[in-house]
């Protein structure tokens, strides 16, 4: 390909005679400390919040960005010096954090981690879009204050004063925070509240105040980090996005809730990234994820044992047992099939096929999530891998279409199964983060092999060839072909869920220890579930490649992992057909919004927030809840609580008694 050719000579340079090599390396390491400083401050805040409230705050990245924006606005419009700007940024962002905590996040305490993650993700989209509307993508210059301009002679090299300042400030703040937490009474109160908030109440601790105060501090820290970054990085609404992904990796690898872990891992990641930049630049960002994966495999709790969160199940099945049985019943399947048959006549056929395939992808995700109790942030790795392998087989190897599809699905499922063996041992948020890191690494690999995958340009020429004599180039015909494939897959899923395996899986989601104590191999159950999920996502991905006849990096990007989560929640987790409905709504919204407005992210963010705050069961779940469960409630005693999480799977799996409260 003409565009992707590299120069004929490849020269790698590490140093030149005449320049002290030590100086050069040390300068680069200092740069690593600067990056590490930002990571450490951000991770510290996130870890504290997590330790205190078991909240994974996706908005942290937006707070970083807001800190930078505040400092820019006050500097440009009010002429406020950077020194004051730091304080103003920290306080304003801290206040924003507290307001959000008191109004929104507080309502979700005690509920599943997934809700808060999604809420904060939605909020970050809203904030980002609002900032973009006011400040645009670019900004005016914002330079360093005079006192910190220029460079300092460190003896072996000259180093920018401001960067040195940043390193000093971040070290001081991290050390100060550590000291406050470990050596002061306030710190003891915070640690106690993090460990056992209800117990602390008995000793007179004002837990809500401690929580809000901690949230303020962590947010202020993020805002301050952003303010510090403003002079040396370009201030833009998207500043927080990349940052937040790294921060997650650092926090998880350091040990969730461990301050020392976050700080050490933060600075460490910065250094590792700087070193990687010396030797193999393209890996500079991927290396942070690889580091995280290595740490988690070698030392599962993070390098410093953080809070033990292995007993955190990730439940998100607010639908009742009755409702679930309804969704898995033949009438529901028939209704769905009928809807599927008419869809391409209501909606543009290629879009209809997209809805079908994204819906199937989301079902693959939902299988793990609602039925297995595992929230995966990386199913796009299989959706995309399958699409790429199918495409590569057809375009470069010349394999006929049906075999290529089989090949793509097989390769992707195999990769998923192998990865499943590693990852099924992890639970809760660790599971989620590892799947996220893995998907990031897959993205990196796909981009690295741009000669085959087309990289940013994408892989084109994945042509639909006739199958069994039928010409698939007609979009309607292809839609029905996909409908058959999707229908068969859903039938398989339903079959499995109703089988003993399915019941066992649900039992393991409810109470792992109990299942293990009666002899179930929970680990094996999870591996199977993961492999099955990958299989489903792979089928959807291979067909997706054929639908568009090209494959691009979007299929392995973060958003492709986030979309099925959104679609599932919107349509209703655990409802089998909800993900299709959710997929339909999201795709139609995107399609229509793109012609109407440029604020698509804002709407989608609002949608997320609305789902999590107001209708957690998703559309189908809410409809069924109001229709079935309310009706049955009137026939029973006044105390009958119809919104209890299901206990039936335990009974069916052979476990009696009341589940542990």
């Amino acid at each position, binding site marked *: 390909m003409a565009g992707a050719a590299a120069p004929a000579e490849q020269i790698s340079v590490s140093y030149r005679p005449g320049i002290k090599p030590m100086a050069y390396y040390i300068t680069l390491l200092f740069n690593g400390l600067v990056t590490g400083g930002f990571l450490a401050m951000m991770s510290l805040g996130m870890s504290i919040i997590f330790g205190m409230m078991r909240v994974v705050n996706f908005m942290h990245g937006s707070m970083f960005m807001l800190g930078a924006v505040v400092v820019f606005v006050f500097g440009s419009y009010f002429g406020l010096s950077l020194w004051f700007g730091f304080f103003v940024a920290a306080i304003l962002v801290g206040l924003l954090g507290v307001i959000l905590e008191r109004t929104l996040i507080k309502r979700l305490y005690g509920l599943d981690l997934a809700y808060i993650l999604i809420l904060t993700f939605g909020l970050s989209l809203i904030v980002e879009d609002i900032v973009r509307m006011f400040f645009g993508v670019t900004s005016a210059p914002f330079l360093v204050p005079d006192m910190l301009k220029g460079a300092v002679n460190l003896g072996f090299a000259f180093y920018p004063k401001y960067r040195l300042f940043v390193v000093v400030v971040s070290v001081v703040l991290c050390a100060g925070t550590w000291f406050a937490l470990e050596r002061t009474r306030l710190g003891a109160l915070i*640690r106690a509240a993090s460990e*056992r908030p209800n117990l602390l*109440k008995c000793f007179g601790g004002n837990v809500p105040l401690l929580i809000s105060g901690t949230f303020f501090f962590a947010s202020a820290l993020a805002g301050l980090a952003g303010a510090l970054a403003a002079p040396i990085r370009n201030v833009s609404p998207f500043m927080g996005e990349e940052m937040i992904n790294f921060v997650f990796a650092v926090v998880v690898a350091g040990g969730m809730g461990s301050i020392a872990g976050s700080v050490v891992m933060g600075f460490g990641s910065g250094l590792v990234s700087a070193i990687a930049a010396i030797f193999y630049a393209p890996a500079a960002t991927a290396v942070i994820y690889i580091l995280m994966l290595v740490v988690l495999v070698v030392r599962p709790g993070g390098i410093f044992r953080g809070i033990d969160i292995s007993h955190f199940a990730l439940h998100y099945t607010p639908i009742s047992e009755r409702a679930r049985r309804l969704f898995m019943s033949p009438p529901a399947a028939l209704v769905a099939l009928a809807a599927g048959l008419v869809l391409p006549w209501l909606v543009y056929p290629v879009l209809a096929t997209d809805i079908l395939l994204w819906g199937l992808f989301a079902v693959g995700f939902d299988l793990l999530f609602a039925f297995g109790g595992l929230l995966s942030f990386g199913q796009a790795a299989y959706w995309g891998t399958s699409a790429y392998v199918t495409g590569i087989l057809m375009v470069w190897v010349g394999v006929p279409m049906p075999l290529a599809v089989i090949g793509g699905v097989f390769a992707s499922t195999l990769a998923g199964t192998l990865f499943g063996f590693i990852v099924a041992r992890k639970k809760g948020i660790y599971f989620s983060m590892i799947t996220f890191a893995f998907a990031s690494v897959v993205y990196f690999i796909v981009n690295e092999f741009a000669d085959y995958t087309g990289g940013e340009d994408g892989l084109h020429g994945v042509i639909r060839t006739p199958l069994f004599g039928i010409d698939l180039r007609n979009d309607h015909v292809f839609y029905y072909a996909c409908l058959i494939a999707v229908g068969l897959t859903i039938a398989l899923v339903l079959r499995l869920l109703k089988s003993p395996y399915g019941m066992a899986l649900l039992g393991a989601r409810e109470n792992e220890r109990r299942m293990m104590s009666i002899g179930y191999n929970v680990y094996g159950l999870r591996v199977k579930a993961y492999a099955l999920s990958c299989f489903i996502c792979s089928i959807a991905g291979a067909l997706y490649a054929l639908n568009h006849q090209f494959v691009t990096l979007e299929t392995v990007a973060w958003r492709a992992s986030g979309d099925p989560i959104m679609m599932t929640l919107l349509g209703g987790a655990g409802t089998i057909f909800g993900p299709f409905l959710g997929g339909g709504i999201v795709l139609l919204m995107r399609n229509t919004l793109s012609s109407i407005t440029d604020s698509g992210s804002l709407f989608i963010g609002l949608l997320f927030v609305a789902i999590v705050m107001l209708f957690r069961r998703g559309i189908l779940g809410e409809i069924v809840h109001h229709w079935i469960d309310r009706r049955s409630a009137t026939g029973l005693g006044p105390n009958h609580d119809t919104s209890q999480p299901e206990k039936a799977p335990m009974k069916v799996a052979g476990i009696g008694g009341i589940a542990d409260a």
Partner: protein
Amino acid sequence: MSMLEITNLNAYYGESHVLHGVDMSVDAGEVVTLIGRNGAGKTTLLKSIIGDIPHRTGSIRFDGTEILGLSPERICKMRVGFVPEDRGIFSTLNVFENLTIGRPNGRDAWPLERIYELFPVLKARSSQKASSLSGGEQQMLAIARPLYMGASFLLLDEPTEGLAPVIVDAIGAVIKQIKQAGLTILLVEQNLPFATELADRHYLLENGHIVREMTNRQVSEEEETLLEHLGV
């Protein structure tokens, strides 16, 4: 007038009715024990007093004030101290931090010197992480804490559970000293000899009902039957 007066207390866990019409009282300076088998409702009764059970009916009067509707924080401020069965230790804090986590309340709060006098091990280990303490040492910490906070009434849930006899004796000695210092104690215990050593009276609980009020002599005399009854 009794320090603690409970009248017709009923408590519920969801739909389960776990305490049925409990009537009992504790006078100032007394040590009273609750005995009964596992699941009889002893811990629930303690938790009901401290305000940790949401659904209750009846009356609980402490020092003349009705406390049934109050939150645990308020009751705690009224100088009622609770030592739960799992000791309620913050494992990430050290001994000193655990001990002083609550603020001293009132003139009767024990100063640190006095606490260290009674519990020398806490002084020795004051900067160690609480999770590194032995069971007995943790129990000492758990008992010392409400004293630091100035409690006048102590609720102790199975303080000797799982401890070696030597440690049990040490705990007994400590509780005696506390009683001598004038505190009122409501004790839940399965260890009958231990209970009779310290207590003035006993209430026998069965399936959420108080079935008997017994004297020390009665408990000693009927020890064998009681033990069978308790399923120990």
